Every structure is written in C-alpha cells, then in structure tokens.
C-alpha cells in the first residue's frame, strides 16, 4: 500500500471514532515509518483549570489511538486490533495552549500480537512530553469497519 492510500485509510478510520472527533484529532502523517496524529489544544482537555495543562488521560487517549492506528502502517489488510495493555511515562508537563502530536510505530508484528511504541510531543519530537509502549491483539481479517460488519464476531470476546 502506498503512503497516499495509507493516509486515506487512516483518515477514514479516525473519522469513525466518535471520541476522537469530539477531541478534534486529525491524521498529521502516515507512512511506512509510523503514524502521526495531532490533538488540537482546547481548554476542555486541561487537567487543571488554573494552569491549563493537558490532562494525562487525554495524552493516553491520543497515544492509545496513535499506537492502535500504527498497526495500519504494517498490516496489508485492515484488522481490528484492540489494546491489550498500554504504559505511558510522563517526561515533561508540556505547555498549555499548544497542540500535541502523537507518533507511534510497530516494532514487532507476530501472528497474534503487535508491539508498538511511541511518544507525544509539542515543539520538538526529540523532546517528548510522554513515552508510550502498547500491545495490541490481532483479531484477524474477517472483521471490517463499515456497513455489514460482522457484529456477532466481535460480540464474543477474544
């Protein structure tokens, strides 16, 4: 899949995630190296009304989405990959009022599991505000987003 098709697939995927739409998240870049999303700053995502600093939980949402969508970069066909676990280390408090970028890539793709890692940054990718590792389950190719999705397949938990 070329980068343009990947970008289109990523944008389509993000567009159906209602909470991400509520946060105004967008695809910044998508290629074979990895996925970059952007979370625009807004006062509603602050963890402290006085400082306006973004709450850690919003960064977890950004990075869970970015790591999950990084699987699009390595899988030839779409597979739904729910998060198995995620760890986020907060390096710096970040700056209030600035958009946050999330970058993630897959560093191991096995038959059942995909290992991802990434980071969140504002000004400089070399000075991340948070580092993340996350593991995702592969549910297989039979599950597709969109009309006619086999709901029953997903109803039973893996």
């Amino acid at each position: 899949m070329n980068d343009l098709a990947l970008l289109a697939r990523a944008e389509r995927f993000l567009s159906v995630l209602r909470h991400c739409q509520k946060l105004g998240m967008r695809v910044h870049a998508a290629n074979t190296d990895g996925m970059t999303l952007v979370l625009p700053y807004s006062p509603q995502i602050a963890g402290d009304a006085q400082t306006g600093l973004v709450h850690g939980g919003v960064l977890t949402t950004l990075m869970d989405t970015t790591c999950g969508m990084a699987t699009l970069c390595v899988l030839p066909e779409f597979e739904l990959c729910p998060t198995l676990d995620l760890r986020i280390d907060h390096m710096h408090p970040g700056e209030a009022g600035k958009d946050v970028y999330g970058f993630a890539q897959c560093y191991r793709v096995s038959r059942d599991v995909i290992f991802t890692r990434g980071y969140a940054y504002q000004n400089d990718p070399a000075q991340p505000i948070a580092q993340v590792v996350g593991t995702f389950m592969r549910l297989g190719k039979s599950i597709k987003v969109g009309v006619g999705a086999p709901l029953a397949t997903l109803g039973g938990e893996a």
Partner: protein
Amino acid sequence: MNARNLREQLNQAHARGDYAPLLELIPYAGLIGIECARQGDELLFRLPANPDNVGNPILPAIHGGVIAGFMELAALLHVMVFTGTGSIPKIIDFSIDYLRAGHVRDTYARCQLWRQGRRVTNVAITAWQGVEAEPIATARAHFKIEEPTDT
C-alpha cells in the same frame, strides 16, 4: 488556589460527600463526565454511559483512552482526598491492562493506595461495569505529591 484553600475544599467535599466542586477544578473531568460518591470511608467513581466517549463504532465500545483517563482521574481524586495534599498531584506514569470490552454502559472504578511515600504514591485502580469481580480494566499509577503539611 493556595495549598490551604485546596485542603479546605477537599475536607469539605469529603465531609459532605459532594465532590462536584473538586471536579470543577479539572476541566477534563467534565469532558468525559466522571462522578464521585462516598461509600462509607471509600470513594466510588462512576463514568455514566455517553455516546461521545465511544472509540469503537462496531461493538460499540468506550474508547480505551477514555477508560484510562477515567481511571487516572479516579486515582488522582483518590490520592487528593486520602493524602491531604495541598496541590493537584502530578502523574509520573500510568499502566493499564484491558481485560474486557467496555460497552456503552455506566462504568465504575475503585482505587487502592498501596504506598504513600513522602514524594511519590502508588495507586491501583480497578474498573468494571456489571460485576465488580469481572473488571474491564486494571491499572496502576504513580503520582508525585507535595509533602502534606500539618495545617
């Protein structure tokens, strides 16, 4: 807000069992809609079902990041109430294991303060929907706290 004001507000909230004034200090708490109630000496957190929190349109299921944010917020409030800190604790790291899909239903969380050091606390969080013994996620977090002052 200075440390004494925050502590007073915390003590009042805990005495009345009304934590809404505390949640108002945290805009993100309002965005996802977390609620907090006192149960005896414990705190029970609730995240009411809300279509805006959905992150999987097929199931549908709550966004894993929202579940994590809810649990981090629960841990933060738990630490604030039970350590008597004079400022909002800072998150150091957060680790979550997803055990079951979070359906679009009310979600609950309870916290356990495993260790309160002088500067750092360790908190475990459990989230469930129908049955508490069947959690949808477990998590743990470290927070940096300012040393409680005896005022």
